[in-house]
């Protein structure tokens, strides 16, 4: 490659999918490039033109249209187009026009096809069958396989080391000076030693052992040894170490098995640090399991409220470890349910045992086990049918207030739509609830259902679970038999539509208008969850979780082959995008929300989200046709 064309190569190296190529591959691309200038308003690709090149936008902006002339996409610097025609060996189906003065790099078909063949990431990015969205989601999954945190993550500094001839007193001084709790003992290498390494000055050493705080007590002071004793005389001959890529779990088991509290961490034969049991415990306390047991042991609302920051910490850690959206959703919902449950236990302690049986019903995201970090409370009380308002309602009203205020204090703000057990309507005996659901389903009316769609994600949290299970059963059996109900739910789910995609630092709407941010919940996740719910109700699914609902939908012929997989990927892609942005906000000490600024969206993520929006948009079109509004 002539150094002189670095200009071309460096530019491409900044954008997907070229950024993933090796230097040699990039050279090959840059050397093959042809260039042309297009004045704003001129055609770049015409319908049915035969393509011989992949088009890369070096500067300017391009609009891509559908066959019918409707805007398909707007592309900017570093974007590519024409790949679909090249891959399908068919003429141009999506014509393109220069929106601004534009400079295009043309990459020959042979080079493009060759890259697809030799580079999986490149192929994934451009390929049709395995869409970009799927490959991105699979990447999330892959990093999730590495969920096991490696012990090296807990190593905070290089170990303190002393030579074998050092006196124990000097070793103790070193430990104190470095505020450590153990020191490694090194010596000139002897043949056959396992732990021979070289230091930064190329001198060879062998790792002989470790001397810890407690050794000074048990092996030196208790034995009455002199302060002048060389450390080599007090260390044991058995050294237990852990490799830096072992899991935290494995390191902990190693400590337990060998009854030691310090473990030298080795990278191959080089000591890189020492891990103490307390490091592991501190790490484990951020896990969701620990948090849940901590919640369930809190003696007061104040204690629970103090745990609110731990929820954020747990969320951040899950994201850092590469958890997927289902794991995050599940963990946060479990945490939310634990808060709810503990608050109810505390309420019972305060108010005495409940006069009649009850069940606390979770609604919305908690019921779906898809709770996020930004969420308010949605709950209701289902009471036994021997409930007598005159006698018993004071009790449950007080209980609802304790719960609602408590959740608010713990970081789950009051529901703006007043879907809380404190609302008299949503604190009713089972028979009334059955009546509510029957009326919603049998006498549907889109306006009324708009506010009650949240009730169609329902799950028991605490108390007589069977009450809520009966309601779930009722919904599953009745909903599918009422096409007008499904149509009304379907129509409501279409109230919110996704944008077309991104363009530079804007969100681009279907009419070509630009916005500065996108509310990913309102414009993507919520309508998708709504849509999945309608299909799930139509096939009689009892599942509440969207992924489980899709599994149930899969067992029917409701959707064409492959559609539910695409919906699954779209849901995962949008969820992960939201999760990553929220984790980013948290790490920057900002208040996480559902809004995403396109500036912070990476190039791959843009494409993935655009694909997800497209899947949602197509699915919405199908929904309209599948559950038509019938007039009676």
């Amino acid at each position, binding site marked *: 490659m002539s150094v*002189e*064309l670095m200009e071309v190569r460096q530019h491409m190296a900044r954008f997907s999918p070229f950024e993933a190529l090796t230097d040699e591959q990039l050279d090959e691309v840059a050397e093959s490039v*042809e260039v042309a200038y297009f004045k704003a308003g001129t055609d770049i690709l015409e319908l049915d033109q035969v393509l011989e090149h992949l088009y890369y936008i070096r500067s300017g902006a391009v609009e891509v249209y559908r066959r019918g002339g409707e805007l398909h996409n707007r592309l900017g610097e570093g974007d590519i187009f024409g790949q679909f025609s090249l891959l399908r060996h068919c003429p141009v189906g999506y014509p393109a026009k220069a929106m601004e003065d534009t400079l295009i790099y043309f990459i020959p078909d042979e080079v493009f096809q060759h890259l697809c063949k030799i580079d999986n990431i490149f192929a994934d990015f451009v390929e049709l069958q395995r869409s970009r969205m799927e490959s991105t989601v699979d990447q999330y999954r892959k990093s999730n396989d590495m969920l096991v945190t490696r012990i090296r993550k807990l190593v905070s500094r290089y170990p303190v080391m002393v030579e074998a001839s050092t006196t124990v007193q000097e070793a103790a001084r070193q430990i104190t000076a470095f505020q450590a709790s153990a020191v490694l003992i090194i010596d000139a290498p002897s043949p056959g030693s396992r732990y021979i390494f070289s230091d930064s000055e190329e001198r060879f050493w062998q790792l002989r052992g470790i001397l810890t705080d407690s050794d000074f007590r048990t092996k030196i002071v208790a034995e009455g040894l002199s302060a002048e004793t060389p450390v080599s005389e007090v260390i044991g001959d058995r050294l237990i170490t852990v490799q830096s890529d072992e899991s935290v779990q494995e390191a902990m088991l190693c400590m337990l098995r060998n009854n030691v509290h310090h473990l030298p961490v080795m990278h191959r034969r080089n000591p890189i640090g020492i891990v103490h049991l307390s490091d592991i415990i501190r790490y484990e306390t951020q896990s969701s399991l620990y948090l849940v047991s901590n919640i369930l042991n809190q003696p007061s609302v104040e204690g629970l409220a103090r745990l609110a920051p731990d929820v954020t910490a747990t969320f951040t850690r899950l994201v850092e470890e590469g958890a997927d959206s289902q794991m995050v959703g599940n963990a946060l919902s479990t945490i939310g349910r634990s808060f709810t449950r503990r608050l109810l236990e505390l309420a019972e302690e305060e108010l005495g045992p409940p006069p009649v049986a009850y069940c606390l019903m979770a609604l919305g995201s908690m019921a779906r086990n898809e709770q996020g970090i930004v969420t308010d409370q949605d709950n209701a009380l289902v009471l036994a049918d021997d409930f007598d308002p005159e006698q018993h309602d004071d009790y449950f009203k007080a209980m609802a207030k304790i719960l609602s205020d408590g959740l608010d204090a713990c970081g789950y703000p009051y529901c703006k739509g007043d879907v809380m057990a404190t609302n008299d309507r949503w604190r009713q005996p089972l028979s009334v609830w059955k009546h509510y659901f029957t009326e919603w389903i049998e006498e549907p009316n889109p306006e009324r259902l708009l506010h009650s769609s949240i009730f169609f994600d329902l799950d028991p949290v605490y108390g007589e679970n069977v009450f809520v299970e009966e309601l779930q059963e009722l919904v599953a059996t009745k909903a599918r038999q009422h096409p007008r109900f499904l149509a009304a739910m379907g129509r409501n789910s279409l109230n919110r539509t996704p944008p077309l995609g991104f363009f530079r630092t804007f969100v681009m709407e279907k009419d070509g208008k630009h916005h500065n941010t996108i509310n990913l919940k309102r414009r993507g996740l919520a309508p998708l969850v709504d849509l999945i719910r309608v299909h799930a109700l139509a096939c009689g699914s009892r599942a509440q979780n969207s992924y489980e609902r899709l599994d149930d939908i899969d067992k029917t012929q409701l959707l064409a082959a492959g559609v539910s997989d695409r919906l699954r990927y779209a849901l995962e892609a949008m969820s992960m995008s939201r999760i990553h942005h929220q984790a980013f906000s948290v790490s920057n000490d900002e208040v996480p929300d559902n809004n995403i600024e396109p500036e912070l969206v990476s190039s791959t993520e843009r494409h993935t989200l655009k694909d997800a929006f497209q899947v949602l948009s197509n699915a919405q079109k199908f929904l309209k046709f599948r559950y038509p509004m019938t007039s009676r």
Partner: protein
Amino acid sequence: MIKAPKRQAEAGWPEYMAQRQSAAYTALAKRYYSHPLLPADTPISDVPMVAMDLETTGLDPKRHGIVSVGLVPFTLNRIYLNQCQYWVVRPRRPLVSKSVTFHHVTHSDIAQAPDIDEILDELLEVLAGKIVVVHYRHIERPFLDYAIKQRRKEGIIFPVIDTMSLEARIHRQSMLARFRRWIGRPPASIRLFDSRKRYGLPLYQGHNALVDALATAELLQAQIAHQYSPETPLSVLWS
């Protein structure tokens, strides 16, 4: 000595080139001028072109030398970057340090480089039959002519399209430009970098003969798209 035509209006380029062809007496010149010049009325869309940029140690062909040559063949529709050529050559006069940073060509590059004589045949082979496009013809044409004359006795002169002079026609010689000057506005810059900016062309980390040749080819495409048309005859553009 045959004088090169002064202005493109009465441009005697066809006559000039014909005279040179019949008068050529060295192998290189004979070979170069044996390629017929495109007719003056050829629409620009049909013209094979090659963008050329020379980096030199100064502005005077007699005192300064060429250090690198960049060539990019192109047409109105397509720039064949994949056919580009670039040479570093050793000037007869030593490189003064002042120009080193300017060119990105270092002493050690040049120490190992051949004399331009060794690449002249190959270079002229690329130019033959095409219209050369440069930004500021008063560097490329005289420097190349002089270097050839020094080494092969007979210089070579040809018509060029000068993107700087096309830019000057709009920004210096038009009625609007004259009016602006009259009311005291500073004239628009017609340097390569500033001219490109006006057409929305990207910023290149300039001053490398190949990148500048590419930049010049792109600029001509942009100028034709904005100020002329694909049917514009060659005679309007060359000088």
